[in-house]
């Protein structure tokens, strides 16, 4: 696997004569989803910062966008596909945990049962989306149906009268309102993923001590979710130009090293 693999694609340039073959990384893949519009890596960042709820993100839509981009290409870039698969797998795992979070009994489920439960919930969500679409169509077809809201201009003004009420009902409601809520289960907290900032700090600290390190070595012993988040932190650092990534061959160890900053370039960038 090579992180930050370039993913070439054609851009519709204003002058087709000079249309250039630009390169982009998988992370720059432009997405146009219901919940999000923009590059893939921004989506990842927002998800990891918990600013964008992953449950609302249509992962199938991301896959379609990628496959569509792939279809525009003449040949298959296996490395890009590999990187994409890893990122999407991480997203799917996070999403699955998000969907399953909040129910204490789920941790008792066998993996097979949990998968079934997840499939059931996705199916339910799909039905609700279908129902929402139906409502939207209904609203459109009823657009030419006007009716009055509120009383007619010359309607008799009847006095609203209320039957006698029991003050004990008020006491009971207030009593319920001041009652301690039942203990909330904290079981779902175990399913949460760590903040990306934790790994940003960890990797920066390591690079403060050493010029380079092996990614696999640093994340060995972590859970798969933690590894996925750590990997995304790595991408974030590379995007910020703080590190350089090398990998001798697919599945070979990923070597992380400090980026050597070109003083002049960085000065220009600041003044621009």
């Amino acid at each position, binding site marked *: 696997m090579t992180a930050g693999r370039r993913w070439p694609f054609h851009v519709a340039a204003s002058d087709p004569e000079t249309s250039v073959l630009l390169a982009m990384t998988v992370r720059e893949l432009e997405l146009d989803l219901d919940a999000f519009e923009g590059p893939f890596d921004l989506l990842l960042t927002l998800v990891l910062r918990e600013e964008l709820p992953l449950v609302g993100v249509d992962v199938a839509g991301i896959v379609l966008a990628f496959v569509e981009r792939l279809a525009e290409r003449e040949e298959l870039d296996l490395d890009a596909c590999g990187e994409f698969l890893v990122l999407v797998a991480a997203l799917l795992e996070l999403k699955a945990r998000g969907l399953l979070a909040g129910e204490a009994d789920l941790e008792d489920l066998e993996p097979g049962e949990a998968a079934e439960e997840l499939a059931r919930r996705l199916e339910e969500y799909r039905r609700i989306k279908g129902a929402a679409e139906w409502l939207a169509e209904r609203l459109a077809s009823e657009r030419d149906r*006007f*009716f*009055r*809201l*509120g*009383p*007619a*201009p*010359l*309607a*008799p*003004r*009847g*006095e*609203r*009268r*209320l*039957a*006698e*009420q*029991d*003050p*004990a*009902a*008020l*006491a009971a*409601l*207030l*009593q319920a*309102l*001041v009652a*301690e*809520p039942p203990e909330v289960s904290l079981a779902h907290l175990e399913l949460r993923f760590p903040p990306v900032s934790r790994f940003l700090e960890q990797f920066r600290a390591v690079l403060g001590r050493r010029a380079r390190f092996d990614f696999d070595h640093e994340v060995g012993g972590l859970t798969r979710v933690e590894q996925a988040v750590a990997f995304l932190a790595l991408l974030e650092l590379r995007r910020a130009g703080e590190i350089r990534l090398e990998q001798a061959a697919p599945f070979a160890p990923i070597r992380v090293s400090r980026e050597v900053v070109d003083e002049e370039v960085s000065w220009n960038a600041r003044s621009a």
Partner: protein
Amino acid sequence: MERPLRLIQANPLDSLARAIEALLVVASQPLSVGALVEACGDEAERIETALGLLGERYREGRSGIVLEQVAGGWAFRASRDAAEACGRLFERPVERNLSQAALETLAVVAYLGPCSRPDIARWRGVAVDSVVAGLVERGLIAEAGRGDLGAVRYRVTPLFERVFGLESLAALPRLDDFGGDADELRGRLESLAERRPA
């Protein structure tokens, strides 16, 4: 479906009259000729002729719907023949129950008032604007000056005391564990509100 079509062809004002019927049945206030001109995109003179036709059709003794010219323009009303039925429809409701939202809001205002809408919303954990507006409209709560932060505060009314059969607010049933101490209740609600998930 056949007949009225032939009718339209016979009377060029018919479709205009139907548009006016439609506008009047949807309107919440009387419509002036000017408003009808704007809505129908037709001339005032033709609008007035159409209104004449409609007045003929929707008149006392002929229809339950009566077209009436009032200060602000034209509006439909119920025929006098139907006054008794209308009276029953509009006066009938001696409402048995207040909604859960209304009762809970009343409980808060009765025990902890005067309090503002933000107070009630925080303590109940839901938006209360429409509930409070409804209770004011029914005369069960009323404004009672402004609080420190400038928000209008509310208290229950004498009508509230009557409906709940109370001599005064002091006659409200005590809550278990709270010896009628409003400050303690308020403190408890504030601490619950702080811990409530957003």
